[in-house]
C-alpha cells in the first residue's frame, strides 16, 4: 500500500467519523441523560458516565399506570391505521399500476404537500358532531391520512416492476382478477409489502400533530404523552429522557434492523406523512 493510499484511507475514515458522529453522539447523550440522577444531569462540566446508574428512571416511567395505557393507545392507533391502509392501499396500488392511471397519483401528491393541520380543522368538527372525540376512532381515521398515501405510493412503484406475463397467463387460464391478485401478484410483491408496512408503521407511530388536537387524557398516544410530561408532570431530566428513549426505541431498532427496506422505500417514494 502506497503512502497516498494510506492517507486516502485515513481521510476517508476521518470523513466517515465526521459524518456519523452527530447522530451517534446525540443518541449516546440521550442514553446518558436517561440513566443519570438529577445531581449528575445538573453537573458542570457534564458527566457522561455516572458513578451510579439511575435505572430507577426507567422503572418509574414503565411503572406509572398511564404509561401502559398510552403504549396500548399507540399500538392500537398505529396497528389499526397501518392494517387498514394495507388492506385498501395494496389493491389500489395494484389497480393503479395495472391501469397505468398515473394521473391518480396527483391526489397522493396533494396529500403529500398538504400540512397535517389542514386535515384537522374539518375532521375535528366532523368527529365532534359524530360524538367520537373521547375515543381512539378519530385518531385511527386521521392516521389514515399518513398511512394510506405511503402504502399506495410504494405499492404503485413496486407493482410497476413486477412481471405481467404470469398474471396474463393466469387470466387466460380462467382465474378471476382477485385470484390473480392474491395468488400471483401478491406473493411476488412481498418485499414491497414489507417496505410499505414498515414506513407506514414508523410515520404513524411518530405522528404528534394529530394527537395534540384529538387526544384526550385517556386517549393519548406515546408522543403526545411525552410532550405532556415536559409541560406538566415532570421537570427532572432523567425520567424525561428515559421516557423519550422508550418512545422512540422501537423505531430506532426497526431502522437499524430493516434499514435496507427503509432506504429502498424512502428513495423510491421519498414519502413522509403529516
Amino acid at each position, binding site marked *: 500500500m502506497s503512502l497516498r493510499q494510506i492517507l486516502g484511507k485515513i481521510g*476517508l*475514515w476521518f*470523513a*466517515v467519523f465526521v*459524518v456519523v458522529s452527530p*447522530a451517534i453522539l*446525540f443518541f449516546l*447523550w440521550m442514553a446518558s441523560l436517561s440513566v443519570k440522577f438529577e445531581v449528575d*444531569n445538573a453537573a458542570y462540566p*457534564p458527566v457522561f458516565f455516572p458513578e451510579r446508574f439511575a435505572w430507577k428512571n426507567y422503572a418509574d416511567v414503565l411503572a406509572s399506570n398511564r404509561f401502559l395505557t398510552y403504549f396500548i393507545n399507540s399500538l392500537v392507533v398505529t396497528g389499526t391505521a397501518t392494517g387498514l391502509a394495507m*388492506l*385498501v392501499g395494496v*389493491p*389500489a396500488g395494484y*389497480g*393503479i399500476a*395495472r*391501469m397505468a392511471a398515473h394521473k*391518480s397519483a396527483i391526489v397522493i401528491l396533494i396529500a403529500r*404537500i*398538504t*400540512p*397535517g*393541520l*389542514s*386535515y*384537522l*380543522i*374539518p*375532521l375535528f*368538527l366532523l368527529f365532534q358532531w359524530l360524538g367520537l372525540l373521547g375515543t381512539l376512532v378519530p385518531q385511527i*381515521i386521521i392516521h*389514515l391520512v399518513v398511512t*394510506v398515501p405511503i402504502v399506495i405510493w410504494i405499492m404503485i412503484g413496486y407493482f410497476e416492476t413486477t412481471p405481467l406475463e404470469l398474471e396474463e397467463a393466469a387470466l*387466460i387460464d*380462467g382465474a*378471476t*382478477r*382477485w385470484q390473480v*391478485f392474491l395468488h400471483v401478484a401478491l406473493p411476488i410483491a412481498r418485499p414491497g409489502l414489507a417496505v410499505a408496512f414498515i414506513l407506514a408503521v414508523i410515520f404513524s407511530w*411518530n405522528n*404528534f*400533530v394529530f394527537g395534540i388536537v384529538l387526544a384526550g387524557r385517556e386517549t393519548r398516544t406515546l*408522543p403526545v404523552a*411525552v*410532550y405532556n410530561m*415536559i409541560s406538566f408532570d415532570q421537570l427532572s*431530566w432523567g425520567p424525561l*429522557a428515559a421516557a*423519550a428513549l422508550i*418512545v*422512540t426505541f422501537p423505531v430506532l431498532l426497526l*431502522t*437499524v434492523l430493516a434499514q435496507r427496506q*427503509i*432506504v429502498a422505500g*424512502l*428513495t423510491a417514494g*421519498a414519502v413522509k406523512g*403529516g
Partner: protein
Amino acid sequence: MKAIAEVTPAAADAAPEQEWRPPSYWPFVVPALVVVLAVIVFPWVFTIWMSLNEWKVGSPTTFVGFANYLRMPNDPRFVEAVGHTLLYTALSVLLPLILGTFAAVVFHAKFPGRGFLRGVFIMPMMATPVAIALVWTMMFHPQLGILNYLLSLVGLPPQLWVFHPGTVIPSLVLVETWQWTPLVMLIVLGGLAAIPTEPYESAQIDGASVWQVFRYITLPLITPFLFIAGMIRMIDAVKSFDIIFAITQGGPGSASETINLYLYSVAFIYYDLGYGSAIAVIFFLLIVAMAALMLHLRQRTMWTEIGSGA
C-alpha cells in the same frame, strides 16, 4: 370496508360468464378511493367552504365571502409568520443539501461497516420527532446544556440558543438539519450510484484533483437528484411543526412562529376555524407556488445547461 364486500362477489361472478377481455382493475381501487375521498378530498372541500365563513366554535356561522382572506395582509402576526417561515425554509433546504451531498460522497466510497453506519446515519430522521425535540431542549439549556459546554471547550462564549429571539430560528434549523440531512444523503446516494465510471477514470488519467472531479464531473451529474432532494426538503421544511412546537411553541414571544404554528394557534387555541381554514388554504397555495417556482427555475437552468453544452 363495505366497498370490498360489495364489489368482490359481483366481480367474481361476472368474470367467467363474459367472453374474455382485459379485466377492469377498478374494483381494486374503489376501497382506497372511498378512504381518500373521506379523509383527503372531503376535508379539503370542507376547508374551502369554512374559509368563506365566520366560523367560531360555540357561535353560529355566517357567510362572509373573502373576508377571512382579506384579514391576512392586515394581521401583523400572520405577516411576521410568513417571514419566519421563509427564513426557516431557506436555511432548512440549503444546509441539509450541502451536508447531505458531502455525506453521500462519503457513503458512496466503500469501507467496512458501511451498511450498519448508514443505518445509524438515518436514525435521526426516523426517530420520533417529539422525543428528539425533548433531548435537544435539554442540550440547548443555557446553564446545564451540553452545547454551551462544547462551545466553551473551543473557547466560544455561551449562547442562549432557542431562548433568545435572535438565535431561535438558526437553533431550530440546526435540529431540522440534523434530522433531515440523511434524506438528502439517501437521494443523492441514489444519484451517485447511477453515474458511470468512465469520466472518473479519464479524470484520474488527466490528474484531476478531488475537488475538480467533484466540481466538474460529480456535481453536474447529480444535479437532478439535488433538485428532487431540494424540492422534498422545501415541502417538509415549510410544514415543519413537531420540532418547533415541542421546543419553543413559537417562542420566545412569537420569534419562531411559522405559518403552521400560527395556524395551530388560530384554529385550536382561539378556535377561529373560519380564519384558520383561510390560512390553511393560503398556506397550501404558498407551498404549491414555491414548488412551481423551483420547477420553473429548474427548467430554465436546464435550458442554459443544454445551451452551453451545444
